[in-house]
């Protein structure tokens, strides 16, 4: 048997954003702190101090590790709540509701871990947007589960083979902290470049 390698839940999010970015971060080990990631980290620093409180009807626990043996997932949760016996994850995000739906994927992966850890079905989760102080309900439905599982398979494959997905230029590149390493337009630019004599 191979030594088991777990996948970071955060890698799923990155993969959904851009497979090439996921490869750079988790296979090639490149990481640049730009404004986004720094802000994100300090927000997480605050969240990631383990504490366990009872607020009215809601029980809360912050910053615990989540793990799934079935999917080989691991990651730190921002907040887990339980209300009337129902557990659900809450993920904190910098800024507004995401333009991309990869945040939901991350919540779903946390739900998969929670189900395995508690033995109970998890049907909902939330994303908390720091910018608007609002919680967005995420329904852990069949469709989302399937796309999360498919992403887990893709990331597992990526980590095992190390095969680089080619960068593809899109709108997402503009906010990407790895832009100057990735140079996503290079392939096309080089193709059309005519060297001067």
């Amino acid at each position, binding site marked *: 048997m191979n030594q088991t390698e777990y996948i970071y839940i955060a890698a799923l999010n990155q993969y959904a954003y851009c497979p090439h970015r996921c490869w750079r971060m988790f296979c090639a080990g490149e990481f640049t702190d730009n404004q986004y990631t720094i802000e994100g980290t300090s927000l997480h620093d605050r969240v990631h101090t383990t504490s366990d409180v009872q607020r009215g009807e809601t029980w809360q626990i912050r910053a615990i590790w989540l793990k799934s043996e079935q999917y080989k997932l691991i990651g730190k949760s921002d907040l887990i709540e339980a209300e009337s016996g129902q557990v659900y994850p809450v993920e904190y995000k910098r800024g507004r509701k995401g333009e991309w739906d990869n945040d939901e994927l991350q919540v779903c992966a946390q739900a998969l871990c929670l189900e395995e850890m508690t033995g109970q079905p998890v049907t909902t989760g939330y994303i908390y947007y720091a910018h608007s102080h609002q919680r967005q309900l995420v329904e852990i439905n069949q469709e989302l589960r399937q796309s999360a599982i498919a992403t887990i398979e893709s990331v597992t494959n990526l980590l095992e083979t190390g095969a680089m997905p080619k960068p593809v230029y899109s709108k997402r590149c503009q906010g990407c902290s790895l832009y100057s390493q990735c140079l996503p337009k*290079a392939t096309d630019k080089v193709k059309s470049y005519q060297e001067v004599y």
Partner: protein
Amino acid sequence: MGTVYVTQIDAFIGKIDERLTVKAEQKTILDIPLIKIEGIVVLGRATISPAVVNELLDRHICLTFLTQSGRYLGRLEPEVTKNIFVRKAQWQAVGESQPAIHLVRGFVRGKLKNYRHSLLRTQREHPDIDLNNNITRLENAIAPIEKTNNIDSLRGLEGAGSAAYFGCFQQLIKTSEFQFEARRRRPPTDPVNALLSFGYSLLRHDVQSALNIVGFDPYLGYLHVERYGRPSLALDLMEEFRPLIVDAVVLSLINKRSLTLTDFTTEPLSGAVSLTKEGLHTFLRAYEQKKQSNFKHPVMGNKCTYQEAFEIQARLLSKYLMNEIEKYPPLILK
């Protein structure tokens, strides 16, 4: 701020909070935030605090040691990035492989074409001199590059092209004060050669740093063969930049008379020529200014500095080796 050059003998390089401080003779001569530093070059002797060494390694800032006259001694090399894929691709291409031949063609073509443009420009600006013979010789070295399929022959073309260029280098010098006969190294025994050698040492620090950031092993090259302690890939990637940066800075300093013979000293017996302290500062300023000057990158289409171009070319090199781009485009500027 880009590179910090420490020229003061017996300077002390230390750190206070997040700032680098350089002290000499009980005075602080430099105090800048570490975040603004891209590299450090020490000329001559200096003491470096262990805290600075840790900090430089941690921040991936390269530190190069040169002798006072600019000869390369060694460097503190931070860990390369964890990008093993770049190094794997680099190693796979070693020898007479198709990618290696392609890259060597690129390095040689880049350098010789930049030489050619430099001669053509001078010829345009100074119709009184005649460089046509040397330009033709250069073109004769450039023309067969694409059809040449082995690295040794490409080295030959590189040699022939360089000889054609340095054969008329004297005519690019517009003052009778300086004479250039031929390229002489180790040690350079005339001011022009001293300036060229010194400039190439600085360039090597910069190119090697860029390769390190991208994840390459700078000691494994294609045009330059492996030899113990020789950063062959840095020497390879330097080729296209030599005329664009170093030769341009040297010629401009001489032709504008920013440097005169009084800025040089000659060692007894060996005849080795080096810059005086004042001359050194003039040269370092000009080199740094050149590196920070802007131009439009002919391939990427955006504005960049030469300092940024080192890394862009290193990234293009890695993209070629990893099959992301179909060819390696050397930086060629008109």
